[in-house]
């Protein structure tokens, strides 16, 4: 495998100048939060306990303020903005404070390939501790796994345990049987914490162990894929968010604060299915990797009509209306002041993806969107529209509003039917996206383009040679690899060209977009760069079909 981590070459900068704010899929009206999730992750990781509380208190304003706005004085809004500002300040200072720590850990990750395989990137840790941790971790896992090599050989294990070391979830196997293993995980973490340090990851035995401590929970990923520590941490964060979406942070912390030994599985009953599904999606869906949302390619006039239909059915306290078909976003209508974070939207996608129970009848469920407000539930009216693949979610803050929302949905369906929008959505879903051939670049096999300003991405259907499941998985791993290289915090790259034995990949990141393109193995860098420039022009031409650029508001 020849690998040439490219330096930004001349054409790159030129294009960037031309393209700023004009890149395909750019919009000044974002409906999704667009913060870089990796920066955010670092911030989240570095907050100290008191700040967590503070942040939680501040964030809890969102749902409360919507309620208040409709019932009482308008002062809630002011408090809301103040809270955001404060939060930003906290973020900035904590980022600066821990910058040095971060860099150390990144470097360690970098070096891990060519140093001793067992390297632990806890800054300022003593060698003795490292040694103990490593031994304990390895021995325990081997003991546990003698029974089944299949279990041991799973590519990615994910565990959730409480701070007291009680098992909550294991991706594979029965978590009951893993009590002792989880006990060790907990011991590792508290041992390092005792020395006023945080255990981030261990690399040992060809596996990466990544730890995410989110009091009162501990999440652990054990993985023999080549994903970076950063990517794994982000995945654990998704898992954590999934738990919050079921319980809310307030309930979670209250329960485990009052009874440290509480068996959280009692409250999480039925959630395993969603966690399993989430982890499977993470391993195959680029939206999690990119923290972006995929839109259903749709004629812009149809999309506008759908937007207007939803808009016109507005009722009080309806915060978000989300129309989803086939795991892709059709449209999202929101209350003017509130935007949704892609991570929250991913939870919604996962919810629909994991359960068939919504197809049988209209549902009414409480759901916490942790980025929106981790302290409380939104209530969602979920219905599949008129025997189609299109699913409408109406999110509100009032738990008694089911029947109002059911009426609202009827109105929307009526309008959509009148304008034949449901057929249009069905056609778009049945058509299965667009083909890479449409772009008209002969050697281009596949690509993923993310518009940063809208947190949306687009990708064509996977075609030959990526029809087989294994090939798809391999391609996805390649994308993960290029992504991790260009996003490496210690040595970020603007553009990277990687030639493998079976394909060549180009990764290109600018302030406005991220583009990953796959070519045949014989493609040269020059050809690839010419091709992606052509590709960008094509995406620009199609941007109204591929992206939601003018999202409707209530």
């Amino acid at each position, binding site marked *: 495998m020849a690998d040439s981590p490219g330096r930004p070459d001349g054409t790159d900068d030129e294009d960037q100048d031309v393209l700023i704010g004009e890149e395909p899929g750019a919009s000044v009206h974002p409906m999704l939060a667009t913060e870089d999730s990796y920066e955010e992750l670092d911030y989240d990781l570095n907050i100290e306990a008191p700040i967590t509380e503070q942040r939680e208190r501040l964030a809890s304003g969102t749902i409360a303020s919507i309620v208040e706005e409709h019932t009482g004085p308008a002062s809630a809004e002011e408090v809301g903005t103040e809270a955001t500002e404060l939060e930003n300040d906290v973020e900035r200072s904590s980022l600066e404070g821990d910058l040095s720590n971060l860099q150390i850990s990144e470097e360690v990750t970098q070096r891990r390939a060519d140093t001793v395989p067992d390297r632990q990137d806890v800054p300022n840790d003593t060698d003795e501790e490292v040694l103990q941790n490593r031994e304990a971790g390895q021995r325990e896992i081997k003991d546990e796994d003698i029974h089944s090599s299949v279990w041991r050989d799973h590519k990615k294990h994910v565990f959730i345990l409480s701070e007291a070391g009680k098992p909550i979830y294991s991706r594979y196997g029965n978590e009951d049987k893993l009590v002792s293993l989880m006990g060790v995980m907990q011991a590792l973490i508290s041992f390092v914490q005792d020395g006023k340090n945080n255990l981030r990851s261990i690399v040992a035995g060809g596996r990466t162990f990544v730890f995410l401590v989110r009091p009162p929970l501990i999440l652990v990923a054990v993985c023999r894929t080549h994903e970076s520590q950063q990517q794994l941490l982000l995945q654990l964060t998704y898992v954590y968010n999934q738990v919050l979406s079921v319980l809310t942070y307030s309930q979670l912390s209250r329960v485990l604060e009052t009874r440290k030994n509480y068996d959280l599985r009692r409250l999480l009953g*039925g959630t395993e299915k969603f966690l399993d599904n989430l982890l499977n999606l993470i391993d195959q869906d680029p939206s999690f990797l990119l923290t972006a949302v995929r839109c259903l390619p749709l004629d812009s006039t149809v999309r506008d009509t759908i937007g207007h239909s939803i808009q016109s059915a507005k009722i009080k306290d309806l915060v978000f209306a989300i129309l989803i078909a086939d795991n892709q976003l059709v449209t999202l209508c929101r209350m003017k002041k509130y935007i949704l974070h892609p991570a929250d939207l991913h939870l919604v996608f996962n919810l629909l993806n994991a359960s068939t*129970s919504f197809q049988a009848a209209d*549902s009414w469920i*409480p759901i916490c969107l942790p980025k929106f407000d981790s302290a409380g539930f939104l209530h969602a009216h979920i219905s599949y529209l008129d*025997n189609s693949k299109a699913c409408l979610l109406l999110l509100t803050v009032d738990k008694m509003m089911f029947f109002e929302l059911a009426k609202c949905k009827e109105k929307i369906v009526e309008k959509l039917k009148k304008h034949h929008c449901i057929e249009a959505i069905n056609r778009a879903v049945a058509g299965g996206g667009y083909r890479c051939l449409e772009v008209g670049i002969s050697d281009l096999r596949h690509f993923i383009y993310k518009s940063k300003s809208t947190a949306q991405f687009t990708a064509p259907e996977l075609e030959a040679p990526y029809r087989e499941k294994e090939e798809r998985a391999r391609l996805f791993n390649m994308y993960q690899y290029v992504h991790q290289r260009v996003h490496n915090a210690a040595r970020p790259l603007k553009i990277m060209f990687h030639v493998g034995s079976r394909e060549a990949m180009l990764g290109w990141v600018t302030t406005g977009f991220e583009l990953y393109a796959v070519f045949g193995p014989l493609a040269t860098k020059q050809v690839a760069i010419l091709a992606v420039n052509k590709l960008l022009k094509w995406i620009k031409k199609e941007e109204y079909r591929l992206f939601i650029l003018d999202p409707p508001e209530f």
Partner: protein
Amino acid sequence: MAGPPTPRMKALEAKVVVLGKEGVGKTSLVVRYVGKIFSKNVSPTVGASFFTFKMTVDNHRVKLMVWDTAGQERFRSMAPMYYRKANAAFLVYDITQYSTFENMKTWVDELKTATDTPMVLCVLGNKCDLKDQRKVQSDEALMYAASIGALFFETSALTNEGVQEAFLRLSLALISLSKSAPNCGLITKDYDARRKSEDFLSFPPSLLLLREQIKEEEEKEEEEKKVGRCC
């Protein structure tokens, strides 16, 4: 089913809530009745699902609005929303698990303390096709149902045993309740024959998807049987 509409036909609207522990088959029962199908892998209900359907019983056009609730403990705090103003409740347990029977009793106690209007209660012992694994005896359940003045049936969503009867009897009980207790919150109106509708509003469109899925699954299974086990 629909008899000749007599001029004095009445229309009755009732809210029904289905309660019981997770996994006892609440959704399966409702889907069996509404959709005439049984799905082997029904997902656990999240929150609650809402079904409506109509039937003609005893010269009444009865519209049932059914809240099929989630059985998990974490949704328990949401339950009052669904049984508030309900006119009838299905209390479901699994005859192969005694704990679900005990759990069902706690629902009865909760309903007794939290609601003040009279309500039709119907105890359903589900999964009665699994006779060899039975843990809750019919007599015991029957005695209990009688002690709280509830209807009692043993049902199987798999074989459709007792399901039709349970819904039918519940509707009849609702009709007599509306006559005996005028202030029970049930609304009866003169039935407007012009707004005549099918018993099941044709087939609920949302269930078509499910039915298709079941077909697909069955086909897949058959294929798998042919091919043998893969992966």
